[in-house]
């Protein structure tokens, strides 16, 4: 008991960068009107419906747009400039998986299961088969997301290809919801879901229980089973014992089903979930590596000056495209994980910790790459937004490229904004990511190795790697 208290005392000293206490929380749902809203059945469905309208326009523009230049396509610009940038720069880092809360893509499948849009019908339709246990991880999402990026030279520039991707996700969502239970598709298949889950560990919001003791006494566990007010967790989780954001789709059903109003929508310091040692695995580690690899490859192919690589990516020749796929896959699945494996091995070696498995070191330390990866993506997104953001004004007024001018902005010319500051902004973001990565890297070393002296030794190779990775990204973005 006394050791427990001692540990708690240590934990209470835990601060991000030695400044921000990681146990600080503010429950947004403690504001009555917000709690009231979160408990209503029309919320977030009303946002999903509005979002669905928007995506219908995107899909229509994709079907009509054909091969027309992507920068004048509503679908291409909205998805790959606005949505992606907002997702990477705002939604995931700040609001966790809020996108999943309002995502319209799996809604068709979910409605077919429920046969209701707003109401509650816990007797779900479809075959309701349990998702195979062996596939209950991120591997399918990893592979699907990687495969999706093979086609980035098409999806990000051709309206019809964007339609194919989004429409394909909707279709797959419907098919799987007819066969498997609840949101199995979102949890284990959706290519957009995996990286959101991983990076939402960095988010500044979370859904958690207010008082675990209340949940412990509650035998019915309506957050899992559902009741008249709402569905049992569609994401197949146990909201009463949430510990990290990774797999919580923030659908808010637990707010509706909890009879004790025991759910909280917390604001918190970023990155606190990185230290939660639960459900960690190689699948999540590889998601990390793949995201880093994609950030590099996307930058090189799209924001770099190398025309040959662009021709490979856009599939000018089959041979070139296959070269790109090989290079990309090798880099993401072998080169980066290999480099990290060597670092982990050196870390274990210099730490002197013989009783800790290399696999544990490898998996645990990989989580410190999340802030770095997120920073790389945010910096990358600035490179999308600042030069190309003005296209949004055009496509808003002429969504189907039919010569419309709905809001009088169709003739606004392409206007790069603040691109002179692009590189310094990217450097600042990378620097921030580096500092946070290093901070959590050390904390993860402490967590993994247990002893401070051992952790210090084990941390040095990790620090070197993080520094080199940051310098490499810096060189890529502005060196």
């Amino acid at each position, binding site marked *: 008991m006394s050791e427990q208290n001692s540990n708690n005392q240590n934990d209470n000293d835990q601060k991000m960068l030695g400044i921000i206490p990681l146990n600080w929380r503010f429950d947004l749902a403690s504001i009555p009107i917000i709690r009231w809203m979160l408990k209503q059945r029309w919320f977030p469905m009303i946002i999903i419906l509005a979002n669905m309208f928007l995506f219908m326009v995107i899909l229509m523009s994709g079907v009509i747009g054909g091969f027309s230049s992507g920068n004048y396509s509503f679908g291409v610009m909205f998805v790959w400039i606005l949505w992606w940038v907002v997702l990477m720069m705002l939604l995931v880092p700040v609001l966790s998986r809020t996108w999943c809360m309002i995502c319209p893509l799996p809604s068709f499948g979910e409605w077919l299961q429920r046969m209701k849009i707003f109401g509650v019908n816990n007797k779900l339709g479809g075959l309701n088969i349990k998702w195979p246990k062996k596939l209950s991880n991120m591997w399918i999402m990893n592979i699907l997301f990687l495969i999706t990026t093979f086609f980035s030279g098409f999806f990000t520039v051709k309206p019809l290809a964007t339609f194919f991707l989004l429409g394909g996700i909707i279709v797959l969502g419907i098919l799987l919801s007819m066969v498997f239970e609840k949101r199995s598709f979102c949890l284990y298949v959706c290519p957009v879901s995996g990286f959101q889950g991983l990076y939402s560990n960095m988010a500044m919001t979370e859904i958690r229980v207010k008082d675990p003791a209340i949940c412990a006494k509650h035998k019915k566990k309506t957050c899992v089973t559902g009741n008249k007010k709402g569905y049992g967790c569609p994401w197949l989780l146990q909201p009463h014992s949430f510990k990290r954001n990774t797999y919580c789709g923030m659908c808010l059903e637990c707010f509706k089903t909890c009879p004790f109003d025991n759910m909280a929508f917390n604001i918190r310091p970023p990155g606190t979930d990185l230290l939660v040692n639960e459900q960690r695995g190689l699948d999540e580690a590889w998601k990390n590596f793949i995201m880093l690899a994609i950030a590099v490859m996307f930058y090189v192919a799209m924001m770099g000056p190398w025309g040959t690589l662009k021709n490979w990516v856009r599939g000018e020749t089959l041979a070139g495209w296959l070269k790109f796929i090989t290079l990309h896959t090798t880099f993401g699945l072998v080169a980066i994980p290999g480099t990290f494996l060597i670092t982990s091995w050196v870390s274990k070696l210099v730490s002197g910790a013989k009783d800790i498995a290399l696999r544990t070191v490898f998996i645990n330390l990989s989580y410190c790459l999340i802030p770095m990866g997120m920073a790389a993506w945010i910096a990358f997104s600035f490179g999308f937004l600042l030069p190309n953001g003005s296209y949004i004004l055009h496509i808003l007024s002429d969504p189907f490229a039919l010569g419309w001018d709905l809001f009088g902005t169709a003739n606004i010319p392409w206007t790069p904004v603040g691109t002179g500051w692009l590189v310094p902004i990217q450097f600042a973001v990378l620097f921030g990511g580096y500092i946070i990565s290093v901070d959590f890297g050390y904390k993860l070393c*402490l967590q993994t190795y247990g002893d401070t002296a051992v952790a210090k030794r084990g941390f040095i190779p990790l620090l070197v790697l993080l520094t080199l990775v940051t310098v490499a990204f810096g060189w890529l973005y502005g060196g």
Partner: protein
Amino acid sequence: MNNKVSIAIVILLTLGVFTWLINYGWQNRYGSPETYEIIASEELTVGYYAEDLALKETDVFAQIWQNIPILKIVLKHQITERPWPKGLTPVVQVQAFHNGKDIYFKMTWEDDHADTIALIDTFVDGCAVAIPMDTEAPLRSIMMGFSSPVNIWQWQANKDMQYWEGKTGIEDLDVDFVYPFEEKEIFSVTVPELKSAVSDLLSQRIGSITRKDNQIVQGRGLWRDGSWNVIFKRSLTTDNQEQDSQFSGVKQTVSFAVWDGDQDDRGSRKSISEWVNLQIQSLPSKKPADEQALDNTSNIKVYKTSWIEKLCSFSSVRTAYGATSQNQSVETVKEPRVINITAKRFEYSPNRISVKKGELITFRMESLDVTHGLYLDGYGINIKARPGLIGKATFVVDKPGRFTFRCSETCGEFHPYMIGFLEVTPNTRFNLFLWAIGIAFVLMLGLVLCRNKQKKGVETNVGTEQ
């Protein structure tokens, strides 16, 4: 209904709708071509035939045309024009001959519908021949959008009907042309008197098209069996060398364009050809020595600075100088370092340029395919190069660091990613970044190593695990 049957129906329906939509999108796709290749100039022989056509209806299909070889010319979108064209007239067949006095062209292309009436949102079919006025004009060019003046002969179906048949095609509009109480139109109010079905035009670049004072080209078109057949006729040479193209040598270049009214083609929105070389046979007025001289000049492929390029460069330089205050004082400084950049979809060459801070440089950009731009981040310089028209900007690189230059003219699907780097050394911004990382590295290492030993314990997320 059985649950499994319902599920099967939903699945099949979903897949069916999705497949249908993809198929619809695929069938109705439009936009920039998948690949763009510079096509080598083709040759059209203009043979000598002692035949004079009066442009009667029968002349369009006269026996003479059976004897003249046909050149099939592949057309492509006029892709500098937005919105992108819906359709493309893929091929036009061209024939030409001369009789020592006049030159004739015949253009034939498939069109399933004859569009002869121009209304709001309804456009007419047409075709054109463009002939450069300057034999040294760059061969890589897009019709009506290059540096050298060009003589354009534009035939339009509505004008043809009006000129040859005296019809406007719109009966209701006749009242506009006739004063009340008049039985016949005696004074044309809104329709100028046509002297030909072909407009004889001059143009120098987009937006500069001008109707010539002397309309000297005649033409006639007939739509038959799903094809348009249009012939042009004009004298080989004229006295007005300033305004009329001349066919006095053995070689000349021309290009062709087709408008399909059905596909909303009009103005710059059309299908166009690359330049075609004319081989004009047996010119009695020219001596062999002169022919050789003309032959050499027409083959010039190295771009020479013309007065119009100088004019364009001058305006660009002014813009560039105006970009920074420091630049204004350097007009008297020694010659700038000229950096030649070629642009093609979706790449600049060189794609990474290194210069020293304070240098006076000139970006001289040439496009190898479609119109490209070059916008330089941080400097705000924006230049544009149409095929055959060099874009230039001269400026002092007074800001150190790596700056991206990117295409500012929509040039195809990968346009937003057409990028190059200008590195102005020393790259102080990157050096500063390296210093910041270095200092952070030392600080972090120092903090960790100097940290007091703590009790053994496991760091956890106390916020969620307490």
